[in-house]
């Protein structure tokens, strides 16, 4: 495999060896120095890389542990959320049932309300009939009262008239008794008395 085929590292190695060869660093005792340093440096580089890898591994392990912890946390949270979801679903179903019950009750109440409204309308009509009848009765009562009052007035008038007639008849009877007691000589007085009686009767006859 050529240096170019080995990539940048191969190319760098080629240049290093070329420079080393140019100085005779790959010959005799110098080759031993070259090889020892190569081995020591390789050990250092590899140790450094191993340390770096170990550090990275430790870091990755820590990161992984953190991620696993986080994943566990998320799984726990997920389970909790699932439970919470189930609880919410159950509660939802219960609420839906309760809603259905309330809807049924609502429908029943609406029907009852409709019945009450109809009854109310009927009662209102009946009330209006009663009120009309009451008005009529009150009017009748007022009319009756008026008639009664009128009848009472008439009766009073009749009684007054009767009393007046009784008084008049009493006075006429007294006048007739006086006329009967008059002597024939007192014809003129008799006549006057009769005329007065006639006038009283005439006036009462009007």
């Amino acid at each position, binding site marked *: 495999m050529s240096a170019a085929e080995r990539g*940048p*590292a*191969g*190319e*760098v*190695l080629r*240049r*290093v*060896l070329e*420079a*080393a060869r140019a*100085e*005779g*660093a*790959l010959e005799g*005792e*110098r*080759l031993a*120095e*070259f*090889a*020892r*340093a*190569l*081995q*020591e*440096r*390789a*050990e*250092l*580089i*590899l140790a450094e*890389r191993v340390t770096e890898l170990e550090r990275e591994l430790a870091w990755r392990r820590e990161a992984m542990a953190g991620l696993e912890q986080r994943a566990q946390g998320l799984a726990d949270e997920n389970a909790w959320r699932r439970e919470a979801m189930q609880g919410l679903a159950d509660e939802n179903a219960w609420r839906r049932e309760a809603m259905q019950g309330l809807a049924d009750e609502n429908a029943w109440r609406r029907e009852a309300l409709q019945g009450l409204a109809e009854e109310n309308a009927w009662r209102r009509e009946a009330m209006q009939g009663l009120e009309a009848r009451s008005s009529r009765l009150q009017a009748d009562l007022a009319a009756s009262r008026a008639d009664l009052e009128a009848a009472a007035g008439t009766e009073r008038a009749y009684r007054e008239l009767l009393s007046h007639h009784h008084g008049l008849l009493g006075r006429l009877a007294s006048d007739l008794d006086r006329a009967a007691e008059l002597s024939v000589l007192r014809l003129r007085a008799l006549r006057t008395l009769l005329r007065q009686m006639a006038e009283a009767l005439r006036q009462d006859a009007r």
Partner: protein
Amino acid sequence: MISAIVPTLGAAGRLARLLPSVRASLAASGQASEVLVVDDGATLAPVPEGARVVPLDPARGYGPAVNAGARAAAGDLLLVLNDDVRLDPDCVARLAAALPEREVFAVVPAILSPLAGCGDEAGKAGRWRAGWVEIEEAAAGARGPTLYPVGCCFLCRRASFLELGGYDESFSPYFWEDVDLGWRAWRRGLATLRVPEARCHHEGSATIGGFAMEQRLAAWQRNRTLFHLLALADPGRRAACFGALAAQALFDGRPAALGGVAEGLAAFAAGRAPAAGGLDDDEILARSRTA
């Protein structure tokens, strides 16, 4: 005269916040001074107060920016700084006092930083490990040698810096250029000393923090490869380095790392010669270790 050289990628806000501490520390040293802000990419606005701006267009990275500043500097001493450091008032005076006339290339303060495991970025030591120089932090202690002057703050003689050739610009944009500079100085027998009693505070990776991780990995691998191929002189160590590179090609599967190695090899192959003469590689590591 001390010339402070501060390369920046347009970090005007950071400079406005942190440069006053640099000016104050320079002033407290009692020496004449100047502040050169190397505007890498020529995007800096506004110009920081009290600074001379050296524009670099297009942007060329940390090493070339410091080199440009060193060429433009008027001082005989260079205070090389990142744009995200704050200096204690006596920092420059302590560094200047600790820089001898000879045999020392640079002095480095304690670099207090959240980037350093021991809290101080300044102390660096190298050891051989599986074909490469492995850089380790050297805990803070008494004054002593260190492998290289960490690029975020050091004081050196301008002449030494220029004689060494400054930062090797093939390391641009960043990483390993300061190791290479210190190594070359040590090769010539010029030490880098840490001076813990001088203190600098480093916010940390403010400049390269904006680059993607893959980009930074590729740059790191490229420049580590390049450093070893340029800096090592001993044939046995070089053979071991090639062995390590071969192992990386064979076993490091990261595309950015492989790409970085390939780029490092290509940069070395472009007419560069490995180091020769002076202290040998083992001696450099031995001398630069804090006692």
